[in-house]
């Protein structure tokens, strides 16, 4: 296999990875930066906890396929984030950031929530 072909195959594989299995290679650190930069925090809070302005995203976010489909196509109060605004890799990184959020403690174990 020539070097040209090898490079071509590698590039194609990289593209496929981004398009289909992007979350596998995603960066939670970059995801946090993008999450803040594109305004997700505004409605969902900085750790995806949600509130009256937007539902909880994390911990335990939606599977990536459902998550990305919603983000790209939503036509409700949440505006869609299309590719000119948010690249596929950045979207995958956001999902990785949400997946990295620790599971919330059982509220029954938090003294202030049992006053």
């Amino acid at each position, binding site marked *: 296999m020539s070097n040209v072909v090898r490079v071509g195959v590698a590039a194609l594989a990289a593209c496929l990875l981004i398009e289909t299995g992007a979350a596998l290679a995603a960066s939670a650190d970059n995801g946090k930066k993008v999450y*803040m*930069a*594109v*305004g997700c*925090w*505004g*409605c969902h*809070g*900085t*750790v*995806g*906890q*949600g*509130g*009256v*302005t937007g539902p*909880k995203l*994390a*911990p335990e976010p939606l599977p990536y396929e459902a998550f990305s489909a919603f983000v790209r196509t939503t*036509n*409700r*109060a*949440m*505006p*869609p*984030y*299309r590719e*000119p*605004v948010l690249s596929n890799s950045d979207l995958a990184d956001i999902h990785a950031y949400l997946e990295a959020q620790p599971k*919330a*403690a*059982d*509220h029954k174990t*938090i003294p*202030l*929530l049992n*006053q």
Partner: protein
Amino acid sequence: MARKDSSPNVDRRKFLAGVAVAGAATAVAPKVSAAAVGAAEKKLPSALPPSAQQIAAEVGTPKALAQATRPDGSDFMVDVIKSLDIEYLPSNCASSFRGLHESLINYGHNKKPEFLTVNHEEIAVAMGHGYFKVTGKPMMTLAHGTVGMQHACMAMYNAWCDRVPVIMVGGNHLEASMRPPGVPTFHSAQDINALVRDFTKWDDTPLSLNHFAQSFVRAYKIAMTPPYGPVAIALDADLQQEPIKNGEKLSIPRYVPTSPPQGDTGAVKEAARLLANAERPVLVVDRTARTPNAIKLLVELAELLQCPVVDRGARMNFPKTHHLSRAPGVIGQADVIIGLELADFWATVNAWIDTGEGGHGINESRIKDDTKLISINSSDLLTKANYQDFQRFQVVDVHMAADAEATLPALIEAVRSAIPAGRKAAIERRGEASRKAKAEARQRNLAAMAVGWDASPISTARLTMEVWAQIKDLDWSMVGSDRQMSGWPSRIWPMEKHYHHLGHSGGAGLGYNLSAAVGAALANRPLGRFSLNFQPDGDFMYSPGALWTSAHHNIPMLTVMHNNRGYHQEVMHVQRLSNRRNRVAALGKTTGPIGTSIEAPDIDYAKMAQSMGVQGFGPIKDPAELGPTLKRAVDAVKSGQPALVDVWTQPR
């Protein structure tokens, strides 16, 4: 001079005695007009020997400057104001009402009303707004004609939208040939009340002292007749400062409260029939509880029907601990909905989704097509054209233009009579279902609060519970709105008394929260209640001077900053529009889109508080530091001082 219809509590006798004394003084040293002086010269020699008084005046040592021979009109105005038992008068001082100002603090001894110093007219009106929600009594305020009234406008509009009485008296130099030139003339107008006429119930411009007495009592009476609302009196500067005319008969009308309007008997009966026979009735309340008694009446009606109660939060209407207190989702299952004093019936039963479709968004019904709607609303008796606070038009099936609280006793009795005997078991089952659903909802809320518990910036849920740990054993009053904090306190705290939750601004105009909180805290002070104010940063920066007023007048209140460092609703609006247009929202040097953040530099609210004589703590960014800091601040407030804790928070 006395009139038998004058209030027995009025300080009027004292005033009238003053007139008599002044009359006697006039006989000793009469004032003589310029025309009278000319006439007298023809009859008198060019020189007369000095009288004993003149000799004493010229060669003796005067003990004091000459006194006015008769009281000025503003002394009488003070007596009029005192007749209405108004406790406080927050105001930013101004020359156009200097006559009344001087009379209030000297002749009136600065009691009932006590003059409170504020740095902005918006603060004065909003203080009255918050004070009323605790006491059920109005404040009055004085504002400088044109400029002061202009400053006061937003707060007046909030009071109008929230149906709260505030008595605005605006000083004005009406007489153009007599008014001081320069600045006072800039600050004068033909009709200063025109500024606020679109959002006041009534206004007047008194031309005489008796006119003032009648107008002031009338203004108070109109403001305090449901639907409540602000009123305005334009007060001529000359009328305040001119001496009362010799022999002028002055009187103060006695104030008699007006009964609030009740719903038509037939309409009440029809509403009761619908409710008694409904499968899933829902009671929705908003500005319903004018007095604490309405809370009891609403519990009685709800328990009679065992129907869910949805509180839209403009007042503390229904105990949050009650098993029938429910979240708005139950509206979707209703077959009969009764709305009591709803600020917006349309938005209660419909949703507007900001999708941007067609540039407008879309409308969706929250209810079934055949749901019957009943409304009792006193606002239907007072609707004006220009400002659109009446909201979208909603068709209802039984519509009563009446005061809900006044109508509740009749409605309760009508429902009691209308419930078929065979329905009582089904009604009981409805109550049990609600008890179970409410308990489940509470567990969901607590689970949601645990998410992001240790986050920094601090979650509004964590903040809510850290504060609760410090105040739960006190007789507390939440004097500011919790709307910007995902409403966590209202969702979780055991709010049961009318002062536990005071609702919102009404017109959603920023600058309300801090000032109204100070007014409410003033009302709580003599009752020993602990006043707590959750304070959004954006609102704070409109009228931070309210904090100084709280320190100057020793008004204890804990302010906990919900410092999310932005105008957060606008953060979301600009983000939404950017996305729809496939553009990345430009941030500049801030976290939110340009123009929406309050960062770079960050405002140090603790230092601001300290600079105004208020104990300031923070900024607190680590949730572990929050509890100990709040405890110190609570201790400061318990000692009778205002205190502020700046907390860096999540957006909502």
